């Protein structure tokens, strides 16, 4: 984002403004806290107000300027209003993290049109619309910027369990690549972060539901590291992709999965 060639403070985000969707729990919360700890002001947009308050307190406890706003990412006018509020209250956006996502555990044959649309809307279309808002703002200021799309290793593999989610995440990675090319002249880097299996509410089914016991066993056996990731283990990757340290990196996938994908 700027041309200081020193590696000192390469990972410092002081003075930057970041927005994390779905930032009130799980991976999103870990990403938001990581950016705050690196010095950024952080806004989280998410639905659950109790969790928003909880995370806001954690952000503020780290000394960060912070904002939490109840937002349903599938509600388009609401998202546009939330984005404007973030820039009004914290300042022009430097870092967008499209993290909000959810999966429906249903194969293609059982999936309804409505379910398909919902999954695509939150995981992909909302990310596109926010990236467009962010990129317009960043390009107009001419100071560059960072967009991090939180995909999943599911974006690289087929699955009979949550196909609509995998399709949306694959699409999100293509969005990353296309935006990276379009926005490079504006010094905006766009990259995908691909977490593997982490201990979050979203993976509760495989960790705790008896009907998926076999799937859990297979998953652990296949993971060279032999365990789930802890959300805190994403912190470094988020700060790296949000910081000057990754200024020559764009359109890339950063896989963080304890080796699952390469086995």
């Amino acid at each position, binding site marked *: 984002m700027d041309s200081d060639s020193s*590696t000192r403070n390469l990972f410092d985000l002081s003075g930057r403004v970041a927005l994390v969707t779905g930032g009130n729990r799980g991976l999103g919360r*870990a990403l938001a806290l990581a950016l705050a*700890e690196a010095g950024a002001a952080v806004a989280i947009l998410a639905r659950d107000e109790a969790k928003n308050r909880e995370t806001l307190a954690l952000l503020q406890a780290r000394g960060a300027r912070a904002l939490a706003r109840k937002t349903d990412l599938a509600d388009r006018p609401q998202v546009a209003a939330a984005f404007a509020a973030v820039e009004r209250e914290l300042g022009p956006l430097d870092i967008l993290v499209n993290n909000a996502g959810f999966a429906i555990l249903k194969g293609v044959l059982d999936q309804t049109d409505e379910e398909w649309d919902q999954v695509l809307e939150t995981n992909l279309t909302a990310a596109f619309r926010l990236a467009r808002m962010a990129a317009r703002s960043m390009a107009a200021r001419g100071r560059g910027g960072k967009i991090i799309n939180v995909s999943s290793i599911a974006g690289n593999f087929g699955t009979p369990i949550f196909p609509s989610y995998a399709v949306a995440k694959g699409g999100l990675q293509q969005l990353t690549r296309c935006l990276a*090319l379009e926005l490079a002249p504006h010094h905006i880097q766009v990259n995908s972060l691909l977490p593997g299996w982490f201990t979050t509410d979203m993976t509760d089914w495989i960790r705790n539901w008896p009907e998926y016991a076999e799937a859990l066993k297979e998953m652990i056996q296949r993971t060279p590291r*032999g365990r789930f990731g802890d959300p805190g283990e994403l912190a470094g990757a988020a700060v790296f992709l949000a910081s000057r340290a990754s200024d020559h990196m764009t359109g890339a996938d*950063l*896989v963080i*999965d304890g*080796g699952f994908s390469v086995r």
Partner: protein
Amino acid sequence: MSAPATFDLSGRVAAVTGGNGGIGLGIARGFAEAGAAVAILARNEAKNRAALAQLNAFGARALAVRLDVTDRAALAPALAEVERALGPLEILVNNAGLARAVGATRGELEDWDRVLETNLNAAFILARLAARAMLPRRRGKIINIGSEYSLFGNPLAHSYAASKGALIQLTKSLAVELAPHNIQVNALVPGWIESDMTAPMKSRPFYQEVLRRTPAGRLGTPAECAGAAIFLASPAADFVTGATLFVDGGYSIK
């Protein structure tokens, strides 16, 4: 989960092959600034001295070992020298590389052997030596430097492309084998970076092609590889293994 992201390499010992110039030196400098003790293993003694002076200027403990990575008998003693002088090795960067742009139908088999020995066999042998040292300590990072030609075909440097493609597969296999021991193995793929290796291409039409294809519209600098290398070498990447990080200004996705 609230532990701060740490990119600090203080107290860590790193070795970078081919660390006296270009990307290798960019990474070595980044490590030194992040607090590591850094050894550069490379052939050219004058360049070694100049690089060492740069590392010392950061206040880093540093060492230059004269090493030709194709001299198999010299590899173990070189790592032993690093450990004797700086302490237990925790970070190995296999960066030394050689390209011969001779074409598959015309080139000599000696060219092929020399390129594979430098880019792949030496990386394997050094990784194995390093991993054996890291195993009982249950901590370590190995970073292999790939290339755009790990992925793409090259009309002249077939041996370079083959060696760099294989290096990625070596990365994945080592990652799987060493994961239970808390040793992470990853590849960093720099795109077109300003260095002695890419300098000659600037006089050729191909250079314009590269610029047109690179969304950033320019070559990267060795310093721009440092951030990714520090990330991969640090505790911040402890759950990252077997991955390939492209630091190429978007070249590979166009």
